[in-house]
């Protein structure tokens, strides 16, 4: 297990570095010069060249990359070209907002997703199943920015229950969490239902039933636990997505999160900020996927990490 973990961690570091390298080169190839953007309409070519030299952008691209990498390994992610703040501080600040929003949205997605999925499977082909799955199709299909605006108009403007923008207190997160979590709740409910229905056809379910296990004990202990593997895969991916920020929800609700930060940085060609953000997103993703793999073994003891699965 520990050998497997060490291997996975080394692999993760390699993935993150490869992503950083690819991003660095892509950003340098696409049109759009950050110095020209920064210096404005009336900058002379000499002034642009001077600033480019000050920022080290006149050096060969490999030298720029290794310079950035060395600084990053020393904890220095650089300074934003446009906001002139340390990138690390900006990421940390935005992570706080994204993490709070993600927490609310994810809890909501898990609670509603699992509950609806289990209920739909238990009441398979009954009215509740049809109702919940219709809702889940609507949840998956509705664009989250549209859900966000509807929530703002109804619960913010009309009923005045919740603030429509900002992130000053917990109540500010209610509407964005619903808007963000709806789609994930819907996808988790659908995969839970499908997986549960698959499991209920298995021999061991009939055996448990024959042994006299009935009702919710049968559903939760025998069916749900065995149905969890695909659910964990989807829910894990969803967690990675939520934690890397949602540009649309953060923009609509004016939350200073990672998604919005990254999109602005890309539009402005704020290279240090984009690089820092990409490192953050890549790191979050590889950690989540690693945790999901470990969780497989915890949920299903037949899975042995690094040694293949027993039949």
């Amino acid at each position, binding site marked *: 297990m520990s050998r497997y973990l060490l291997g996975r961690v080394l692999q993760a570091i390699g993935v993150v570095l490869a992503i950083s390298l690819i991003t660095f080169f892509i950003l340098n190839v696409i*049109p759009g010069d950050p110095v020209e953007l920064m210096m404005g309409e009336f900058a002379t070519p000499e002034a642009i060249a001077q600033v480019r030299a000050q920022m080290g952008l006149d050096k060969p691209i490999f030298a720029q990359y290794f310079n950035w990498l060395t600084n990053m390994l020393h904890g220095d992610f650089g300074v934003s070209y446009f906001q002139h703040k340390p990138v690390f501080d900006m990421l940390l600040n935005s992570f706080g907002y994204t993490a709070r929003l993600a927490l609310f949205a994810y809890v909501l997605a898990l609670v509603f997703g699992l509950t609806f999925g289990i209920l739909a499977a238990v009441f398979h082909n009954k009215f509740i199943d049809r109702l919940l799955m219709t809702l889940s199709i609507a949840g998956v299909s509705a664009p989250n920015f549209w859900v966000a605006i509807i929530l703002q108009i109804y619960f913010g403007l009309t009923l005045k229950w919740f603030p429509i923008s900002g992130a000053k207190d917990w109540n500010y997160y209610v509407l964005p969490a619903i808007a963000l979590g709806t789609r994930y709740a819907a996808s988790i409910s659908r995969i839970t239902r499908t997986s549960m229905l698959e499991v209920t056809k298995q021999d061991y379910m009939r055996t448990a039933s024959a042994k006299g296990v009935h009702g919710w004990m049968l559903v939760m202990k025998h069916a749900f636990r065995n149905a969890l593997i695909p659910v964990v895969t989807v829910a894990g991916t969803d967690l990675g997505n939520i934690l890397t920020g949602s540009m649309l929800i953060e923009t609509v609700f004016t939350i200073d999160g990672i998604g919005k930060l990254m999109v602005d940085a890309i539009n402005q060609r704020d290279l240090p900020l984009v690089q820092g953000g990409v490192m953050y997103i890549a790191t979050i993703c590889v950690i989540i996927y690693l945790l999901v793999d470990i969780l497989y073994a915890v949920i299903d003891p037949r899975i042995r990490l690094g040694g293949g699965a027993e039949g």
Partner: protein
Amino acid sequence: MKKLLVLVMALAMVFAIASVSAENAKVLHFGQINPKVGYDPQTNTNSRATTIEECVVEGLYFWNDQNEEIPVLAEDFPEISEDGLTYTFKLRKGVYFSNGTELTTKDVKYTFERMFNPATGALSTYMYNMIAGAKEMLAGEATELAGFEAVDDYTFKFTLTQPFSCFTKNLGIIYAAIFPQDACEAAGDDWGIGTLVGTGPYVLGDHDNSSVTLTKNANYWGSEPHFDEIIVTLFDDENTKLMAFENGDLDLCQVPTDLYLQYQGTPTADKFHKYYPLGTVFLSINLSDEFDGQPNPLADVRVREAISMAIDRETLVEFIDNGLGTVATSTVNPAQLGFVAREAYPFDPDGAKALLAEAGYPDGVTFTAHIRSTDQPDMVQIQSDLAQAGITMKLELVDAATWTSLRNAGNVQCEWMGWFPLYADPDNNIYSYFHSTNAPGKSVFYNNPEFDALMDAARLSTDDAERAKLYEQADELMSRKDYACIPLYYPNYVFAAQDYVTNFTVGNLIYQICYDVDFDMDLYNAK
């Protein structure tokens, strides 16, 4: 137990006093899109950042919403030597920065030397680099500004390398705001990020990417500011900003043109007010003989005139821009020096076809316009108009960064442009865009020595009547004979103000939230 009781009571009193004072504080809530550029007026030119900066820092002069320049930190307008090269200014006495230090000529010297120090990366040096020694400083050849002389603590002189009639006008722009030397030096790289100290009516308080708090400056030299605090809430979405206004969270905000129509017929629309910025929207055209290695049809003035004739400006303003504009008859805006009422540009698709045939293009012409997403509604309409006259305008949608790079390199053939001066003088927008020294950087390449001579003469003259005449001739030449650009319309903008907001003014895209604006307290308390 008694001690605990006393402590609880004391705490309760503190909270009670705090809540009462908070309730009684007069606070203006203003909403705008997040500028995301910091608040140092030397290193950004963003009008939304300027709205905040103008509350905190002041310059020698100020342009108000009536397009009048008024002395602020300068006692009066300068004495100008006969040769037009030396300007003598007197600072207002008894003006203190919000940190308690007095404004003197050393702060003026420091401010301009900081601006010309290449390490600062100041963006607007082109407006002030006619001061002797400025170019040497910018080139890193000098560390002191040779053209500055401090006569005493309150009197100083600027010496220019050549006469420039707009020098005092340029000093009225916030880019020349005066900073306190000690505070600015102490702040270092944090200036404009965490720290900004000035002589303005408000002090920069807590600020982040969500909001900026401006508190009343107790040391302010002018009349007492109307509000205890101004809270600027920063949005990323225009829709959300307007919802916040509808919800009563904001007292004031700008209304984007594309959302103007959807509010018509609602009570919110009654709170909308139009204002008229100085700018003009036009089709900017690359006039070089070749473009992308091919002969450029747009180099032929007849093709450019045909384009102008093919565009239905009335429809464009009425239906695409929701009536928020006035059809343009020239590049100079009606509020600017040198504007004269001219006949409307003809809308004549058949005439355009005939003109194209005369120019040797009986089958029409094809060219490409690089556009940003915000330019799309106007440009799609224009594309459709041009097609009626056999002109094919291909639209290539790019992001703002790509657009800037292409344009700076002269690689844009045609583009939508809204170009706004900082004050009502054509030197600030027409010279800066169309003079042959500036046109290549705008991907325009207009080069008519006659036009240049008129613009240069207007820079030297100090007689505004003479300058108006020169600009009138230059505009006629550029907009009506050479069709160096295709003027489309003078845009109107809209802001929303709650019923109790009084005296709100907007000066050239800058929301003047810190001067005249006030509340009618009877209406405010009744809300």
